């Protein structure tokens, strides 16, 4: 990795350490993995003993639900850092350095992708409740693309960091994706096709149902949808930055 990207990472670490909210975005996925690994078994035993409720019946849904939170956190973190940098006119400065504007955008989108891929893989491997299946690869790819989509959504629609924070709350709507994929019956479920998080959740759940071809189709459609979103959002962002 070139020296400039190393310095940018080092600078981000310094900025994140000084901002509790950004720090929470980074530590959040680790807390989710820890909860799935250690909290979920205790919770299911407690619910079973107290209310005869079998939480393990919903472990596939729980995995799909918790998994989608992982890319949202680094995605929101990157989006908020980009808004900060746009507020401070730093992007026009970077554009006049050897990093260039493309290098800057590449870095700001690649970092959450990398974090999402690593943390989603860590969740699937370490949570203890995820199914070990080939379709997890599809799910990780779709989740990796969720992070830059959210970062670009924030910078395309928010005028500043305050608006960005408000918009990041709206990303709570993304929880509708796995809920629709897991619980809403078929024709009605298609109303959720436009929710990006529907696709990784659906792909994962189809994998657990031993539906390899449907899972592949869901992955392919989800991939196209995410690439379309990335293209639209990045052109909106570039227009706004110009």
């Amino acid at each position: 990795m070139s020296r400039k990207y190393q310095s940018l990472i080092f600078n981000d670490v310094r900025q994140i350490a000084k901002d509790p909210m950004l720090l929470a975005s980074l530590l959040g996925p680790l807390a989710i993995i820890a909860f799935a690994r250690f909290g979920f078994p205790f919770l299911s035993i407690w619910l079973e003993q107290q209310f005869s409720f079998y939480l393990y019946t919903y472990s596939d849904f729980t995995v799909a639900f918790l998994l989608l939170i992982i890319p949202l956190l680094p995605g929101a973190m990157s989006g908020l850092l980009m808004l900060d940098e746009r507020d401070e006119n730093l992007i026009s400065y970077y554009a006049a350095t050897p990093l260039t504007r493309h290098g800057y955008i590449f870095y700001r989108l690649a970092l959450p992708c990398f974090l999402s891929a690593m943390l989603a893989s860590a969740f699937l491997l370490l949570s203890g409740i995820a199914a070990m299946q080939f379709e997890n690869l599809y799910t990780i790819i779709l989740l990796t693309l969720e992070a830059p989509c959210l970062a670009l959504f924030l910078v395309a629609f928010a005028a500043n960091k305050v608006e960005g924070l408000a918009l990041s709350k709206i990303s709570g709507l993304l929880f509708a994706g796995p809920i629709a994929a897991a619980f809403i019956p078929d024709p009605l479920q298609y109303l959720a096709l436009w929710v990006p998080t529907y696709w990784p959740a659906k792909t994962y759940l189809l994998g657990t149902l031993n539906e390899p071809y449907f899972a592949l189709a869901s992955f392919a459609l989800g991939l196209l949808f995410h690439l379309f979103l990335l293209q639209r959002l990045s052109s909106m962002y570039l227009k706004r930055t110009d």
Partner: protein
Amino acid sequence: MVIQVEQLRYAYPGTTKPTLHGMSFEIGRGEIFGFLGPSGAGKSTTQKILIGALKGYEGSVTVLGKEIKSIRSDYYEQIGVAFEFPNFYSKLTVLENLRLFRSLYQGETEEPSILLKQVGLEDAAYLKVSELSKGMKMRLNFCRSLLHRPSILFLDEPTSGLDPVNAAIMKELILERKAAGTTIIITTHNMQAAEELCDRVAFIVDGQIKLIDSPRELKLRQGEKKVRVEYKIGSELLMEEFSLHQLADNNRFLHIMRHYEVQTLHSLEATLDAIFIEVTGRSLL
């Protein structure tokens, strides 16, 4: 020539009306060249094209022998840019900011602490940027543009919003770079700063260059070759003008010099402001 521009035309995407209409100019090595003009005249667009931020232009723009349309990221190793509004990570210290920006360059770079000393900011090295005054931020902005020893410096309104003391410091710093051989391009609507700093200025109005010359030549050519004397006789203040031609033989002038209390004595060369208004029919504000 370090910069050669021929028949430069540019229209922003989505607009039909061009912002620049066929500009041509050349800038030599070690020269301080000023773009002067009112807001919206095309100064910033010209600078954006020269720094490679806008590439969809017509005509030819060659900087350091390379056509701007075909430059790569290594072009930025050779130019330094200081924007009008200092842009830094405000929560980080001065030194942390400079170290980060320094690492973006592959070529030889200056030691930030030495540069800070040169611009009188050595005591601010460990202050957060948010704690700096406007004048300090402007000096830091200038300092950052020198980190990679660029051969061309682009300065956008370098004295904007500075008090007279800080403006004088900034001008001195710019002249030091010129003495070191750096080519400097200044974009400004501050005529006084341009007059003091620039070897040549270009007046830009409505996307066109109306005139290019040295401020001194312009002032002499467009001014009156006269001197104005204000003097006092008793409590009465009087004023007279004399032609500079054979002034030493002008008996009336010599009489005033010898016998009255002279209050002011000025040659009547034109000011850049007046020349700008005369040439373009527009004021700078």
